[in-house]
């Protein structure tokens, strides 16, 4: 059991395809324009929220402290959360992987003979591909966050964790609604488009037997599930249907309610540049005797799906500090150019590059940590100070090496290793550790430079060929010395 067999095979995408998708994405001028302008907007909005660098630093230090403290006591806090939620009348379920989580949720829905589930925004349910599992069981699963509703209607997946439909223009959405929503006529007015979505979804909130949501913070001491949202669909999903199921990763727990305000403050400011969202919803109990509304049953599904693998390593544990604000992707030069879909994973951008290998294994994801210039912007804006660049470097090493002594191998450990690469590096090491050999090599390389091929595989696609200088650096320096 120590090597968790909980990698998710559902959304397996060969790493080789990542490069092809990025090439396509970079060539799509329209997509690049969408992301460039949206990310510029979000970066400016965030920056306006933090005029005082020292104050921001103090807040980040506190938020990091809270997250590190919570993780340091994670098993204990999870048990405490379970105890308190159970005492409050909320049923707690545990799932090691996506399949188990989906089975739990399908089971609850079937017990209630449900035909329709409305979903508030939940990236964890995207991670488990819950919608497929529900549909396979004959239960409709409808996304109700406006952005998620739009991408679901078009048979797509979110391209950003906070703004799922950021890759689409209003003209595309207007055509989509006119085509797919019965009775909707073509309009490019954003207010009218939102009105169409509102009208459709209100009927669904009323009809659904089950409402599903994610969780932003789970408070162990009080047994409270906290949800952050602007649209009100989260409140609809957690209040109108008879049954509310919340699903969350095991890392989202904090000990006390007092730990929430500092995290909430940085979450909304970092994500969308808002001081607070329209709704901050704290759910501690199902409908009580005498209450006239609210769900009669509330469930919480706690999902591992590779998180314990990250937890097992002291350095990679920091990955789990994440509060899912999306600031790292908003500031990532690679994400801005290729967009969210190119990654092929639930979580795109820098956070996706460091969390996906634990969820899906390095065999499927080893290319992701290389999709970074290591410029450091992600680590600099992260509100909980996850050292993302360090973790990218670490995962690059894990993808090409055996596990460090005393460390259990990661799922897919060494998956990016190739005999050719090992040979090249062994040769490099031999040259650079033997001065005589090195001198002989550079002498030959400079004298036979005319043999350098003009076409050098991927390098020359957009660059001039590499060619050794006519004389070695050593020779050039010696010559210069003589002249002066």
């Amino acid at each position: 059991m120590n090597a968790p067999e909980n990698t998710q095979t559902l959304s397996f995408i060969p790493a080789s395809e990542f490069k092809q998708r990025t090439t396509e994405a970079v060539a799509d001028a329209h997509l690049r324009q969408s992301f460039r302008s949206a990310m510029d907007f979000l970066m400016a909005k965030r920056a306006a929220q933090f005029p005082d660098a020292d104050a921001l630093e103090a807040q980040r230090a506190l938020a990091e402290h809270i997250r590190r403290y919570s993780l340091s006591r994670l098993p204990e806090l999870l048990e405490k959360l379970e105890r308190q939620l159970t005492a409050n009348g909320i049923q707690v379920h545990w799932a090691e992987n996506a399949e188990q989580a989906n089975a739990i949720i399908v089971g609850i829905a079937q017990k209630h003979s449900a035909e329709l589930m409305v979903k508030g925004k939940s990236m964890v349910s995207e991670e488990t591909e819950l919608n497929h599992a529900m549909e396979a069981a004959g239960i409709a699963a409808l996304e109700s966050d406006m952005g998620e509703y739009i991408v679901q209607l078009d048979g797509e997946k979110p391209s950003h964790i906070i703004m799922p439909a950021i890759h689409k223009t209003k003209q595309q959405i207007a055509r989509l609604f006119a085509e797919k929503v019965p009775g909707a006529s073509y309009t490019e007015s954003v207010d009218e488009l939102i009105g169409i979505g509102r009208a459709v979804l209100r009927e669904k909130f009323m009809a659904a037997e089950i409402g599903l949501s994610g969780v932003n913070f789970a408070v162990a001491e009080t047994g409270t599930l906290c949800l952050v949202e602007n649209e009100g669909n989260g409140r609809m999903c957690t209040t109108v249907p008879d049954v509310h199921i919340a699903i969350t990763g095991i890392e989202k727990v904090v000990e006390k309610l007092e730990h929430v305000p500092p995290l909430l403050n940085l979450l909304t400011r970092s994500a969308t540049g808002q001081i607070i969202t329209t709704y901050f919803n704290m759910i501690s109990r199902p409908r009580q005797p005498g209450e006239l509304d609210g769900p009669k049953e509330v469930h919480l599904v706690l999902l591992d799906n590779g998180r314990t693998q990250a937890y097992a390593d002291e350095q990679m544990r920091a990955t789990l500090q994440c509060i899912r604000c999306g600031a790292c992707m908003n500031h990532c030069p690679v994400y801005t150019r290729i967009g969210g879909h190119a990654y092929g994973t639930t979580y795109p951008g820098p956070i996706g590059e460091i969390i996906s290998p634990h969820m899906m294994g390095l065999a499927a994801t080893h290319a992701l940590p290389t999709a970074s210039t290591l410029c450091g912007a992600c680590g600099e804006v992260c509100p909980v100070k996850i050292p993302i660049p360090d973790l990218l470097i670490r995962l690059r090493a894990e993808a090409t090496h055996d596990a460090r002594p005393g460390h259990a191998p990661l799922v897919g450990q060494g998956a990016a290793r190739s005999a050719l690469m090992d040979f090249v590096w062994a040769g490099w090491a031999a040259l650079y550790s033997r001065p005589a050999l090195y001198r002989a090599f550079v002498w030959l390389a400079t004298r036979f430079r005319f043999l350098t091929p003009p076409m050098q595989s991927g390098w020359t696609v957009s660059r001039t060929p590499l060619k050794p200088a006519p004389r070695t650096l050593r020779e050039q320096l010696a010559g210069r010395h003589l002249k002066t």
Partner: protein
Amino acid sequence: MSARDSILRRLRAAPPGQLVLPPDVPAFYAAVREQAPATDRAARIELFCERMSFWRGEIVRVTPGNWAETLRVLCVTKGVNSLLYGPRGPHAATLEAAGIKGLKPYDRPVDEWKPELFRDTDAGFTSTRGGIAETGTLVVWPDDKEPRLMSLVPPIHFALLDANAICDTPFEAMSAQGWISDKPVAMPSNALFISGPSKTADIQITLAYGAHGPKELVILLLLGEGES
């Protein structure tokens, strides 16, 4: 072994790492407060109004003597034909005496009248537990007398806020409710911070109001007699 036990066992098998002491959040906020200029009631009210207006919350200044009549007039001007209220709520008697047209009591479980609530209820009226100046936020605590959906489903939400109950920050608001303290009171089944009407920017980051919840939030800001 159950999923629960294997997850917990894997977590416990991990190296403990550096000892992390509990963060002292109250001390952090106390230090921030010491550096900031002291606020008074008038400043809190002013900041609350500014921030709530930024969220498109509509502020109407009222007094204990005139708020119900003000609400009646607002209902007329906004064309409200049905106003949902809690018949056992703290303001029921005042509302019933105000002569508001189409006053509708929330007096039975939602399951019995869901379609009417969704399709045929123009506005809802609730009390609030307080406000937050820094963020422009209402603290709403639905209960058996004023149920959860009153502030969510009707297109207009009227909320009565006592100006004396406005705190500076979310942390102070949670402390004022007794949720953060050495001996915290039990959290209500559902508690809410509400900052403006529902909204979305999911289409081309263009802000639109009235996403799924209320399209309008009207705050009846209760001041002392002669203060407004």
